[in-house]
């Protein structure tokens, strides 16, 4: 039971940190509300655009590259899902896993080269 308790307590700590992490901004902002002045005016509440009146919708359409980077990130970040367990258990797995992982990563590298050659990695 001790091990289980240890395990659960460790995660209880994480919960504590989470609670504290949320509480701090909330409390600080709540206290701040008591201290700071509050005199809103139309000018204060406009969107900042270097002093001129804002024009157009600010939610403009982005360059598609942002999304492509997001997709690349998803792919390579998920790769680590396999790399981490492999790295941890590497001593037990040995050469077979190494070769497998090599093949796997080479495949992903081809993906990277693909993105590279297709000029996806170029910013703007």
């Amino acid at each position: 039971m001790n091990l289980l308790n240890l395990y659960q307590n460790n995660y209880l700590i994480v919960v504590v940190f989470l609670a504290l992490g949320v509480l701090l901004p909330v409390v600080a902002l709540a206290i701040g509300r008591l201290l700071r002045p509050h005199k809103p005016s139309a000018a204060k509440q406009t969107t900042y655009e270097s002093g001129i009146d804002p024009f157009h919708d600010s939610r403009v359409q982005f360059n598609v590259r942002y999304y492509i980077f997001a997709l690349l990130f998803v792919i390579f970040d998920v790769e680590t899902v396999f790399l981490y367990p492999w790295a941890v258990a590497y001593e037990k797995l040995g050469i077979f896993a190494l070769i497998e992982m090599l093949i796997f990563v080479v495949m992903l590298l081809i993906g990277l080269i693909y993105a590279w050659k297709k000029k996806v990695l170029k910013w703007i």
Partner: protein
Amino acid sequence: MDLDTLLSFEWGAMAPEFIILGVITLLTLLDLFMPKDIDRRILGWIGFAGILAAIVFVVLSYFDEGGVTSILFETYRLDSFAKGFKLLLLAGSALVMLMAVSYEPKEGLKEYRGEFYYLLLAGTLGTMFMASSGDLITLFVGLELLSLSSYVLAGLRKKNLKSNEAAMKYVINGGIATAITLFGMSYVYGLTGTTNLLEMQQVLMQTRAGDMQFLLMMAFVMMFVGLSFKLATAPFHMWAPDVYQGSPTPVTAFLAVVSKTAGFVIIARLFITLFLMTPAAEGQNSMLFSLKDMIAILAVVSMVVGNAVALRQRNVKRMLAYSGIAHAGYLLVAISSINLLFLFETMWFYLAAYLLMNIGALAVLQVLTSKDDSEDLSQFAGLYRRSPVLAVLMSIFLLSLAGIPGTAGFIGKLGIFVGAITEPSKAYVLASVLIATTVISYFYYFGIMTQMFFRPAASQEKITVPVGIWITVILCALGTIALGIMPGLALDFYNGNLDVLKDFFAPGR
């Protein structure tokens, strides 16, 4: 695991997969590094050659006397079932590849042409893994490799709105289906504690009736529903017409034939291995048998919906999509009747026939529609005048799809029909629906023929048929007729070389 274990595996069993994988890699790199001005069609031919090489290795494996080869701790099984269906999958992909080489949409494929070929191969690789996986995880990975490749393939015409929409719909429907299937799989895993199919079978056999029945039943239904999306059987067919219509025609052929075949492969593998010998509630001794009525209802709905809605279509691709739904329904009849004496054989034969006739029909369609980007029925008007040979070949495919004797389609249907009627509980109703809906299907198949032969052509322009299409169409037509007149060719080959029934349940080698 050390090097010795590694080398002790019979890697030769995986030769076809390795070839395809190698060709995919090669094509990707070639496509990336080849100068821009070289025509990418050459890549298609390389891919075609690769598939042929893989076919050779699959056929060579038929002469292996060793029975079942299983490597990688039973996750990869090369049994007769895998050998038999891999041949179909590869043959289908080869024909689709030929279609793809000749594919030229209105706005051109531009730099995507290379991608076309290796994505097709990637999808094929997925189906091959599905055919010979002995483990839930590899099964699933194969399924997803196929699915993901086909999503992209469906949307390959990036500038074409229809293609975009088709891909989007496919992704959404496919994603939902995957999730449902997986949810079912997770229960099966949970109840057995393993993902190895044969081990699961052993564990499930020992479950007492009533014991966890409910969860298992739920898993069964969920997996079946999820995979039904893949098969495009009603009522899970909504995506199929849209996706077939929007996709480039070779991709339509791939989805309609190779992907569907793979769907049936996975269903056969999964459900017959897992649930045939699992005791069911209420004293029945097989869960598959106890739930076969559900499959039968799906089959009936598919046959009726597919054929009835196809009647109303003017777009030929959609019509073929609905006809595909109906054909999936016919195949479900085979599965729901679970007549082990006939099941694998008839399924195999039917899928072979379906492969030939459907790819053939779509290849002809591709030639006719690429020019105007319209798939309206009227595109077929007066085909007999414009190109008699094409018209006659197309009618062979249509007759086969309609199941007229003398064509492979008839023998396939007959096999299913015989299987359904000879099984112990006699699915007369099911068989009758099969036959009745077949007659309904005459209306639309002959509708196309009416256009081709009876109607005047809109334009007298000569039709230029690319060489790839010629090869595809002629091979398909020859195959359709040969299998229709001498079905023994295929059936004897199948029965002589493969013993699916024995291999399927044999644990290990």
